[in-house]
């Protein structure tokens, strides 16, 4: 009996047959090639001479590391990267604090109007970014005029508008409401208030979704282009995506330098991505897409 059922079970895992196997590996192979080839080409091109980059070659005769030095200097990447690091850090910190507080209220407290307010917040996810551009530009200018510090061409305009993230609130709310009530009852008996519950139960148990928000917001903030382009007028706070965009428009013909600059700017994202990839996919699957 045992002997019979064992191979059967093994078979059930691979029971799709040879045709399916060939088909799936073909698709995977094509998918991997299409995903990877632009990267490989970008990296190879970043080492080429101008002549090689303009003519259909794949392997540079000589790997020109000097392209990186040149791109780094010409595109002023070092100062832009520092700007982006500061902007991303401020945005992320603010966004997480705002979202954690709101998600805690939405998931662990009962108050009149809770579901209505949450519904309104969710529906704002549908508003296209284009709608926000001009009104927010006017708002930010006005806030800078009446407030204590200038907003335009300064960190507040680049960070504060992104701190209210419905996506982050929604994701955290789903997770916070999954935490068993028993933990909260126990804490209540120990005399813990909302603040202690938040810092000692909710946040430590929700590292996975917080990580997802950190990765996605990091990518979003690092890559933001249109808004920073609108609210910066000098180099002082220019983030990396705008720096790269300007570099592309100025040096459009020097393909090899653009590719070197591009490689430099995506290294931080790829690094973060691979460091967190496992937790990242796991927590998306646990985030309760089911509503």
């Amino acid at each position, binding site marked *: 009996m045992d002997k019979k059922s064992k191979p059967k079970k093994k078979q*059930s895992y691979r029971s799709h047959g040879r045709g399916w196997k060939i088909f*799936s590996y073909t698709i995977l192979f094509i998918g991997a090639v299409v995903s990877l080839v632009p990267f490989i080409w970008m990296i190879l091109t970043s080492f080429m001479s101008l002549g090689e980059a303009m003519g259909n070659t794949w392997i540079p005769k000589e790997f020109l590391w000097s392209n990186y030095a040149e791109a780094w200097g010409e595109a002023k990447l070092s100062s832009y990267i520092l700007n982006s690091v500061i902007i991303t850090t401020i945005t992320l910190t603010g966004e997480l604090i705002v979202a954690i507080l709101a998600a805690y209220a*939405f998931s662990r407290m009962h*108050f009149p109007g809770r579901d209505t307010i949450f519904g309104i917040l969710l529906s704002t996810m549908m508003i296209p970014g284009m709608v926000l551009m001009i009104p*927010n530009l006017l708002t930010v200018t006005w806030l800078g005029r009446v407030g204590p510090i200038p907003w335009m061409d300064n960190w507040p305009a680049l960070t*504060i*508008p992104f701190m209210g993230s419905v996506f982050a609130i929604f994701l955290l709310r789903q997770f916070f409401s999954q935490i068993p009530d028993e933990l909260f009852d126990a804490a209540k008996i120990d005399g813990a208030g909302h603040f202690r519950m938040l810092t000692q139960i909710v946040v430590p148990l929700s590292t996975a979704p917080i990580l997802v928000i950190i990765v996605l917001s990091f990518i979003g903030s690092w890559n933001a282009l249109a808004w920073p382009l609108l609210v910066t007028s000098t180099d002082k706070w220019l983030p990396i995506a705008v720096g790269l965009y300007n570099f592309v428009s100025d040096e459009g013909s020097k393909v090899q330098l653009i590719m070197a600059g591009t490689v430099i700017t995506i290294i931080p994202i790829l690094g973060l991505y691979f460091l967190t990839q496992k937790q990242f996919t796991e927590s998306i699957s646990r985030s309760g897409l089911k509503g």
Partner: protein
Amino acid sequence: MRGGVFKNASSLFSSYLNVRRKYMKIKQKNLAPYLLLLPALALLLVFRIYPMISTVIESFYTNNLTADAREFVGFANFTRVLSDQIFWKSLKVTFVFNLINIPIQVFLALVVAVILNSRARGISLFRSIVMIPIAVSPVVSTTLWKTMMDYNAGVLNGLLALVGIPRQEFFLVKEQALWSIVIVTAWKGIPYMMIFFLAGLQEIPVAVLEAAKIDGASSWQSFFKITLPLLKRVFAFVLVTDTILNLILFAPIWLITKGGPQLSTNLIMYETYRRGMVYGDLGGSSAMLIVVILIVAIVLGLQFLALRTDD
């Protein structure tokens, strides 16, 4: 008797204190959630809800940038936009683009997710590789593809030459530009949507599929009868997200074709931008945005109706 009065007064006082304490507690309890929500509500009110209201208001005023010169014009902006041939052409381009783009993205994302959900060899490596494009910014991905699809220096034309296909012009001619944009958006769109399908597939209990197999169901049967119905919610989520993202697609058009050649890639969001930012017609641009939002809402409503679940 005096003692009685005193006693009464003291009990009255203590009961007052009790009531007060209770009241304060209720008050505190009632205020706490709103205090926690305050930062989020303030930010979203100022930076999301106000712009929406302001856009609605703006669509009823003249197109002047200076605040004191503006004039209420009723529906004039709407009638001007709706009688503009370029607007209708742009709308048509947007629909053609999405009728091709969204099904391709959703279908391929589902196929890849099903494959990546299996336990075949080397799957985790493939999973990492296929997800790489998600991490890349629109600027980077469009720059990459624009350079790769260049007529003269593009590496894609080099590859085509290897298999004996003549050079293609891609973004330069109106017959190919829109299709080239489909390729550029799908490169990022398919893996992004694939993540959600994969997450949904992983939540389907293996036991259910095993049971079906014991009952003699073929792989195809169990996919169509079990997996697909259980994926319905994720499918709806992906379809809706992909629709929103692509109906309001902007970055690749702005960075590569600027709507051209001959308006063949002039998607509706780019037309809105062109009208407002390039031609300075803010009133018309706002009216167009309202129309676009209404269209998105209608399309989403139809999708929800079509995918309505009984559970």
